[in-house]
């Protein structure tokens, strides 16, 4: 079992010795979900850290914020930040390293292993225990989830409330870390890309109406983009004005900026936004599922990214987020890359 105490000891030491600026971890939430991101600056606050199956958030997103923060400061503090990562999250760190967005010295990685389980999906939990609010979720010795509600404890088989992506997990323990708590357990996984089967079995016409119906609900809140660690562009294709404006940006540059996608949440615009975002993440998405979790209208965004992940594997034998030394998928070409789709 990954023990939060291991991480707390290390975190306390790092803060006391001033080795990190602050620690990004998980703490208690207040809105009904037991866990929430927590930023710890003082060693005495380290006791607030938690680790349990409700720690579903991908904290790597905050490394992007940290970089932006430093860019705004005249004399930035160059010390690293400490960050708690699960297996999936650590792959996001690898991608950021691969793309040279951050430096290895910018992070001190406190890894936790999910061992034989993973994180809980809030929708599945709500369906399993309708009307009940989970105060705490723990893993017992038989790798079942024990959910504490106001009425007491209930045991649930992990597979019933695990997040979909945990059933296809590629890394149940961090692939990169400075400290690891928990065992590097081998686990049997669901069939890789098994979650795509249902959609892939639909006819093209049915798939089109499925996606049209789902994406018509989108209100363009951009929570999906905001939650994704890899959506770190200063200026996104969907932004209608230049965001990265300096004193040197000319009026012509601003005037000539093309509005690729309108702000209206119409079918055409929503479709283009989500498809372009999925393609921009091809070979970069590590399936942390944050986009889908953040979406207030529960649009199944993961499928779009998962499909491209499958293609990256099938066409190019590429698996995202394991080797920071590899070039990014779309920025390199190998002689043996398939060419039969080039006509």
């Amino acid at each position, binding site marked *: 079992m990954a023990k939060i105490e291991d991480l707390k000891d290390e975190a306390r030491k790092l803060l006391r010795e001033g080795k990190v600026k602050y620690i990004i971890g998980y703490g208690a939430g207040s809105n009904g979900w037991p866990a929430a991101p927590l930023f710890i600056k003082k060693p005495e606050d380290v006791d607030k850290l938690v680790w349990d199956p409700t720690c579903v958030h991908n904290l790597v997103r905050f490394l992007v914020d940290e970089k932006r923060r430093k860019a705004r400061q005249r004399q930035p503090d160059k010390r690293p930040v400490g960050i708690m990562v699960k297996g999936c999250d650590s792959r996001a760190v690898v991608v950021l390293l691969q793309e040279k967005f951050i430096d290895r010295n910018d992070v001190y990685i406190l890894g936790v292993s999910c061992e034989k389980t993973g994180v809980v999906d809030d929708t599945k939990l709500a369906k399993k225990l309708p009307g009940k609010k989970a105060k705490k979720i723990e893993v017992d010795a038989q790798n079942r989830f024990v959910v504490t509600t106001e009425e007491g404890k209930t045991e649930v088989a992990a597979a019933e409330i695990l997040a979909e992506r945990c059933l296809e997990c590629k890394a149940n323990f961090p692939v990169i870390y400075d400290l690891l708590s928990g065992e590097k357990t081998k686990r049997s996984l669901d069939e890789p890309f098994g979650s795509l089967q249902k959609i892939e079995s639909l006819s093209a016409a049915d798939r089109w109406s499925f996606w049209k119906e789902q994406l018509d609900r989108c209100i363009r809140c951009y929570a999906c983009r905001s939650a994704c660690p890899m959506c770190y562009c200063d200026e996104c294709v969907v932004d209608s*004005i230049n965001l990265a404006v300096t004193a040197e940006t*000319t*009026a*012509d540059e*601003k*005037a000539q*900026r093309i509005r690729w996608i309108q702000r209206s949440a119409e079918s055409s615009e929503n479709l283009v936004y989500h498809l372009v975002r999925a393609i921009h993440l091809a070979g970069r998405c590590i399936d942390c599922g944050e986009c889908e979790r953040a979406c207030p209208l529960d649009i199944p965004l993961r499928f779009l990214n998962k499909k491209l992940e499958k293609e990256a594997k099938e066409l190019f034998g590429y698996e995202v987020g394991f080797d920071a030394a590899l070039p990014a998928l779309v920025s390199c070409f190998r002689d043996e890359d398939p060419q039969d789709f080039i006509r």
Partner: protein
Amino acid sequence: MELNVYTPKLAKIVQAKDEVVGTRTIKTFRTEFANGARFDYRCGQCAMLSVFGKGEAMISISSSPLIRDYLQFSILRTGRVTAALHDMEVGDLIGVRGPYGNGFPIDEWRGKNLVFIGGGIGLAPLWSVVQTALLRKSEFGTLSLIYGARTSRDLVFKDELADLKSQMPVHLSIDVAEPDWKEFVGFVPTNVLEKKPSPANTIAITCGPPIMIKFVIKNLKDLKFEDDQIYTTVENKMKCGLGKCGRCNIGFHYVCKDGPVYSWAELKKLPQEY
């Protein structure tokens, strides 16, 4: 038929003059309404100009409301809408809706001396009150202008300033010395300290880049101007111009509706978020 508040009236560009050429291009436009529509406004108010297909931009009306034949706007080329405006020619149609904002309380200043302090394109919002004060000269005390820009090329209303010198003291400045420049060299706030306008029965009205306004106000206070003797006009990003879209607020004020004109006494009570 009364158009709804978001629909602009069509206006024709009747004059387009290059005010400043080079990198910080400024053009002055005069417009006439297409259907002879009435447009009453107070000096200091602004209008939302539409370039259909590009968008809208809130620009202060720099001509005096006492001149009924046209509206004048001086526009810096800085983005999508203003670049499109600059590319337009005499005869082209744009949309104009307004007037918006609270305007300068010029009637309260009767009998007082007025000193206008502008920087760069900041002279344009002040121009309407300068021209109005000149047309109503007998109602006011002495009028004077302290105005500067980065270079002599960046001064706006160059021809008009030459005329203005015969009607009131005009103190010009540029930031860095140039061979033929005989007047003050330095920043506008410094020129204010140099020229020492007296606060006795005087109102100071200033507009320019935010940093210039900040230092002008500081220097005016050093010269013993009271907070309610100093007026400025602020700007913020705007879309609706009607105090609805939630964008241009400073505290509980909307700059488009409750401003843009503020005395320092009022402005310092609002959060410094502009």
